[in-house]
């Protein structure tokens, strides 16, 4: 008997040591590389880079932004020339003439002139249906390259977010025409060759990707010569990898939870950085659902949500509670909407009035139907599950039964787009896409918004106003239309805003120059360097 006990103890010890080994195993080759070289950065992401075709939406945006350039770039101070050195806009706002930068080549040696850019635009336009969220696609009359260094875009109407859309990471990024298949990119490309500061030199799906500096880059060369991106899906494993020196930088909105951040706040070895609020974390209610089609229920859910507790309890105040779909700092969105204050008594009362009476099992019923909803969350996100569980217990108190259901990112997105949800987590798109592009995205099946709003009586009216707002040139009229759309969406209570998300970074203190770009999906590697 004694022997058996010893054996059991031994087995237990072995199991523990195996667990401890998990964090570092499988990566002996590159462990420590980050220490001995100061021009190599090891970055981490929760999933693979996937298809980096710049004209489609399947790839990781930070990688696309490293490989490709756009005509203009969006900075904090406005637009700056990128592949286009300068531009002119005709007085009626319909014709954009770009002067293309000379001497820029793709990393395969191909010259990036107006003809190459034209080829890119043609490839993008050939896949017009895929880009419905860009209103400019509907207004486009034609693109042309009158000479090698002039590029012209003609629109049917003036369109104020035009330069912003051209400056987004995708789809208006330029890939070498050699990579196109029959001049098109919609069915894939045969290489990821761009003009950007880095080139992709090696990758193994779901393991790592290696980016090396493009020595022929037209702009200022970044300090980091080589960036290795490892794929580590699990939050805790990432943190352990950072601790062990296997990786240098964790960066992103859903890559770090608040507990990890507060743990490193006073550390000398590692530095924590938080961006200003970038976008709004919210829950979309599907108005086509039998139960949620009633606006009273949706409003009751708003009143039952304690945003302050989520902000304080789950995020330790790192993310501020959100009152409206867009923060007041977003252009055109400071319109004085009255937030739904947290009041669970009021919520219960509203449910009571709507005919949902409390049943014996603590759940409300109406005509024998149970008040039960499913909440879909992205299991790759580090905090959505915790928020789901919290809301589940909060809503249970007023007799709403919530079934929570997590899916990995891609299938979560697919379900959202197809409208397969009662309630789903979502984020607004953030700068520079808010509010124009994300509102435009509501008028077509881009994310879950389109499907979720189908049950609204005034959906057609809202869509019409969104279409108008993008083409109007009059500032007052534009504000009025935005006010109309945002007020309607607020009163219809389709969105339960939770908190204003911010970008988070945790990195070894040797790394300098870490900051957050204007686009929340971009990782500004170009400004980083090692001490």
């Amino acid at each position, binding site marked *: *008997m004694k022997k058996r006990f010893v054996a059991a103890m031994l087995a237990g010890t072995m199991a523990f040591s195996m667990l401890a080994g998990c964090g570092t195993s499988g990566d002996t080759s590159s462990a420590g590389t980050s220490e001995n070289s100061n021009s190599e950065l090891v970055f981490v992401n929760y999933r693979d880079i996937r298809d980096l075709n710049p004209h489609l939406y399947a790839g990781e945006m930070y990688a696309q932004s490293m490989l490709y350039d756009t005509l203009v770039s969006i900075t904090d101070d406005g637009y700056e020339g990128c592949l286009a050195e300068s531009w002119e806009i005709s007085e009626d706002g319909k014709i954009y003439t770009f002067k293309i930068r000379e001497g820029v080549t793709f990393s395969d040696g191909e010259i990036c002139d107006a003809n190459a850019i034209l080829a890119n635009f043609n490839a993008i336009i050939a896949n017009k249906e895929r880009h419905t969220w860009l209103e400019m696609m509907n207004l486009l009359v034609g693109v042309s390259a009158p000479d090698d260094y002039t590029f012209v875009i003609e629109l049917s109407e003036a369109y104020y977010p035009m330069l912003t859309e051209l400056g987004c990471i995708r789809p208006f990024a330029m890939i070498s025409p050699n990579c196109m298949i029959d001049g098109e990119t919609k069915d894939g490309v045969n290489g990821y060759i761009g003009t950007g500061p880095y080139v992709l030199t090696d990758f193994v799906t779901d393991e790592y990707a290696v980016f090396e500096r493009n020595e022929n880059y037209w702009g200022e060369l970044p300090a980091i010569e080589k960036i290795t991106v490892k794929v580590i899906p699990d939050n805790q494993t990432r943190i352990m990898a950072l601790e062990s020196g296997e990786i240098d930088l964790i960066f992103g909105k859903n890559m770090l939870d608040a507990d990890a951040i507060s743990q490193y706040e006073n550390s000398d070895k590692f530095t924590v950085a938080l961006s200003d609020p970038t976008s709004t974390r919210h829950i979309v209610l599907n108005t086509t659902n039998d139960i949620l089609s009633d606006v009273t229920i949706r409003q009751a859910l708003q009143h039952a949500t304690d945003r302050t507790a989520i902000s304080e309890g789950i995020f330790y105040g790192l993310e501020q509670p959100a009152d409206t779909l867009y923060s007041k700092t977003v252009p055109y969105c400071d319109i004085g909407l009255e937030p739904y204050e947290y009041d669970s008594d009021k919520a219960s009362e509203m449910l009571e009035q709507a005919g949902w009476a409390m049943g014996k099992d603590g759940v409300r019923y109406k005509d024998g139907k149970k008040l039960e909803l499913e909440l879909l969350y992205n299991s790759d996100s580090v905090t959505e*599950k915790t928020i789901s569980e919290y809301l589940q217990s909060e809503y249970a108190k007023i007799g709403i039964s919530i079934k929570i259901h997590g899916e990995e990112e891609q299938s979560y997105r697919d379900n959202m787009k197809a409208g397969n949800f009662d309630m789903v987590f979502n984020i607004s798109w953030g700068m520079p896409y808010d509010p124009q592009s994300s509102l435009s995205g509501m008028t077509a099946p881009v994310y879950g918004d389109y499907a979720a709003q189908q049950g609204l009586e005034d959906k057609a009216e809202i869509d019409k106003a969104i279409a108008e707002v993008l083409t109007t040139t009059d500032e007052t009229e534009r504000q009025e239309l935005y006010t109309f759309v945002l007020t309607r969406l607020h009163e219809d209570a389709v969105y339960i805003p939770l908190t204003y998300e911010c970008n988070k970074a945790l990195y070894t203190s040797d790394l300098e120059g870490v900051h957050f770009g204007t686009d929340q999906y971009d990782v500004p590697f170009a400004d980083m360097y090692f001490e």
Partner: protein
Amino acid sequence: MGKRFLQNKTAVITVLIVLLVALIGIFAPVIAPNDPYETNIINKFADYSLEYPLGTDQLGRCVLSRMIYGIRPTLGLAILTMLGTIGIGAILGIMAGYFRGIVEEVIMRVVDVMLSFPSQIMVFAVVALLGVSVQNVIIANIFIKWAWYARMIRTGVMQYRDRNFVQFSRCVGMPERFILFKHLLPSITSDLAVLASLDVGWAIINISTLSFLGLGVQAPTPEWGAMLNEAKEVLTSNPVQMIAPGIAIVALVCCFNLMGDALRDVLDPKEVKQ
């Protein structure tokens, strides 16, 4: 046998522990200090205190209360799985061992097919096929594991089928059912008891594994494996969270395994002679 049982300390202690755990689970509402579903998000990851003897989890729920309520799904589902596997395994095993011939051929070939797949992978496959729910996890576990028991029990039955008392019964024309249930089943009871207690240990680990991977018991139901999964999310910042459910699973599974061994010692007559 009662005397031999009392003489075997391991048997007595492990049986007592298992009974105690089961009783705590049954009387959970009386024993638990707090409501296991009551969240208090401001008071999350609280230290050990009088109000929360094992602290609170990521939503501020009482860990001890969740552990106590967690006995119900953890142990209850494991016993259910055990009854299912042993039930099917015993019936088919006895039939194969007693009837031999074509019956045995068919049953044993099916068993061979089932055993040729690694059990964990098969469980995942079945759960993936049927969808994620507790019910399907039980079905998957029973479906995969019965074959193993059928084979063990068949071997046990074969030892007895040609004994004199069985042959006598057959001579005097007792119905097959009588022989199966009155002679063979009691003869292999000791084997069954050992298998059953080992199986519960296996089932606890398996159900907890599936819950840990998010395929078994779903939130907010407290289940030890699911609690371990939630603790894993804060492995670096609050490692203490893993201790309670982790130790509980290890201890209970050890208990069942030791109990299985000890019961065999108690029930095996040869052991005494030595």
